[in-house]
């Protein structure tokens, strides 16, 4: 049976692997050796591995200066190789001895999506996507400046490369994560994915702008406005985690949903505080972008009738302390008012008709 000697780096990864069929293997710094060790703390003839008649292998120190140390940290003169993968330290060089029948790890699959992302992560397409994102930022900068700032607006373009680099944080994070788990980083593919989503987002923004101008009160638009960014984020995270070779689908699904939910969560948290200022669609584009025919003022006012919320006060509860149950009062008021709004609607409509 052949024997294998691996020279290891400090992390325990093999840097060179030697396979021998002879029965004596000389190890040391001199070029006469079978395994040449470059470590300066190693002697010219440091140790010898030899096989006896019974087929057992032994490590023998050749009276070296710094000695041969076994995995327990003891200096040895002679030691039988009892198990596969036994490690020694020669000077400061780590070394591992294996027999050729040693078990190896199963073949790893190449992560899914690698192939499908090959086109996207090709350099021309990556550059094109970067160009789209960059142009969008440049346009945003240009359109925003008026007055004196407009004369030197180009200077502001210099920050764009820095902004463009920011999305790389995500693939970098995933790459780091992959390294920890001993997986492939797929940095370029992940970066291509992120920039593709950025570019898609830019396109959607332009389309949403135009749709919002034309279909302010369309339910379909309201749904799309929420759905499309959510889909983009879902796609980004799901595919990204696929590339990062997360084994369990449930973990992948959970992480994807958790990260996508931030898109919903942030506005939701913001809306927790009382907001008594108006929120409305204020989109405006030049006439040429208008594809719907405007409604008329009568229809507008008729449709506005449901804006008037009917308030019904709760019956005052005797003369008892008003303030103490003010909070209760307001909740009952709400319930009553909601009910009465519905009634009010029909009543108001009949007036309009």
């Amino acid at each position: 049976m052949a024997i294998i000697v691996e020279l290891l780096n400090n992390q325990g990864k093999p840097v060179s692997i030697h396979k021998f069929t002879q029965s004596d293997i000389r190890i040391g710094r001199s070029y006469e050796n079978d395994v040449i060790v470059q470590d300066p703390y190693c002697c010219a003839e440091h140790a010898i591995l030899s096989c006896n008649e019974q087929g057992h292998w032994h490590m023998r120190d050749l009276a070296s200066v710094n000695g041969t140390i076994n995995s327990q940290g003891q200096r040895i003169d002679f030691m039988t190789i009892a198990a596969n993968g036994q490690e020694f330290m020669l000077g400061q060089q780590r070394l591992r001895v294996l027999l050729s029948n040693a078990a190896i790890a199963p073949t790893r699959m190449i992560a899914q999506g690698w192939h499908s992302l090959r086109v996207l992560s090709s350099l021309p397409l990556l550059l094109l996507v970067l160009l789209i994102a960059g142009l969008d930022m440049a346009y945003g900068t240009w359109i925003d400046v008026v007055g004196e700032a407009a004369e030197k607006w180009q200077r502001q373009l210099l920050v764009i490369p820095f902004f463009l680099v920011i999305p790389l944080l995500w693939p970098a994070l995933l790459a780091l994560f992959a390294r920890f788990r001993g997986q492939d980083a797929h940095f370029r593919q992940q970066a291509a994915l992120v920039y593709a989503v950025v570019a898609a987002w830019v396109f959607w923004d332009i389309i949403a702008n135009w749709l919002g101008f034309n279909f302010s009160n369309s339910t379909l638009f309201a749904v799309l406005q929420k759905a499309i960014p959510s889909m983009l984020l879902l796609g980004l995270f799901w595919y990204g985690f696929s590339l990062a070779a997360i084994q369990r689908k449930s973990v992948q699904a959970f992480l994807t949903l958790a990260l996508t939910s931030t898109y919903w969560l942030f506005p939701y948290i913001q809306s927790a505080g009382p907001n008594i200022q108006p929120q409305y669609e204020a989109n405006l584009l030049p006439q040429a972008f208008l594809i719907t025919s405007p409604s008329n003022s009568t229809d507008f006012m008729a449709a506005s009738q449901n804006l008037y919320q009917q308030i019904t006060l709760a019956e005052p509860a005797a003369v008892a302390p008003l303030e103490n149950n003010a909070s209760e009062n307001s909740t009952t008021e709400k319930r009553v008012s909601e009910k009465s709004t519905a009634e009010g609607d029909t009543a108001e409509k009949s007036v309009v008709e």
Partner: protein
Amino acid sequence: MFFRRLCCSLAFGLLIFTQQTLADNAQQVFNQYQDALLEVQVVENQTQHKAAFGSGFYVAPEWVITNYHVIANRIATPDSYQLMAKMGDAGLQPLEILALDVVNDLALLKAPKYDGLVFTLAEGLPAQGAEVFSLGNPHDLGMVVVPGTYNGLKQQSFYPRLHVTGSINPGMSGGPSVNSVGQVVGVNVATGGNQLGFVVPVAQVQALLAQVPATPPAVQTLKAQIRSQLLHNQNIMLAPLLEADWQMKTLGKGQIPESIAPYMTCWGRTNTPQTQYELRTSAAFCGQQEEVFLSNQFVTGKIQMQFEWLDGSQLPLLKFNHHYRNRIQQARADNRASPRDVEGFNCRSDIVALNAHATRVVYCVRAYKEYPDLYDAIYLAATVPIDQFGFISRFSLAGVSKENADAFTRKFMETVVWQ
């Protein structure tokens, strides 16, 4: 030389003489009525310290007049505050609310019985230039009498106010202003700084005294009164605006109303661009700026209109559009209100043809939580740009009924348009 000196000494003598009579009158008035004046305190229940104070005066043995805004805390959060009268050596005595007039900022309180001389109300207004004396407790420094001059009714004011040139200061709110014989001509209510004082006319006090209940009503009843006063007031304020044919003038290509009522005052403004890459704007504002005070966080009764003409002919169309759009992003109510007073705004936004021009129209309404059928309404319209020109018109109404808000909006939409 001699003549001039004579003149001077004559004038000087005259000055001393008038000063002297004024001082005499002031002393007389003060001596006569100082016991019928009191400090109205709004005492916070937890700390038993005053949260606000003002002045008040007896008009009958058990009736004290003060300003609504002095005692507003008691209406807003009845459980946290008590009303107390600080009466000389007698210490703090409880007060109770009998009647309110929020529109004219008056309150009638039931006070401990007072047997001395109470203030009498004057029959009419003094002549312009007549001397008046304002009484009260400025900055809690003790009761003072301040001589002043009556200068007619406040011009362009929807709510009637006497204009008194005299030092009316915070803390004197609710105190009386009296004529030279000591009759009440009005109730101190506000100051414009620099000797500009405003006083609620006595007629409003008389109206309040005309219907006094025997026992102090519950806070809910008072709130119902406030509601009907607000409803009545907005009807009176909006009726002339709804009835009148609005005289229009142009702002750029936009049609905007001239001053459509005496109490709607207008202002204008234009920017002078420093560079060629700028938007040129001309703006006009018209409004009834005076407000009805309901609480520290809640005022109502205002009308505001705003018109803006934008000329971006130096800018590319999309750039113009971007900055034009930015100007309609933030519509805000003009009256102060807190979430405990009003519901959130409900808005409708659409592209509407106004005078055949496609226009972005936004209309938002919020309801008053404690005063049913009263609303704040905001309207905003911006013409869809064909070239680099824009016209924005907006208004906000505070404390109006649905019918009036609707009617005003319809009228505004029909008249304030792109020509």
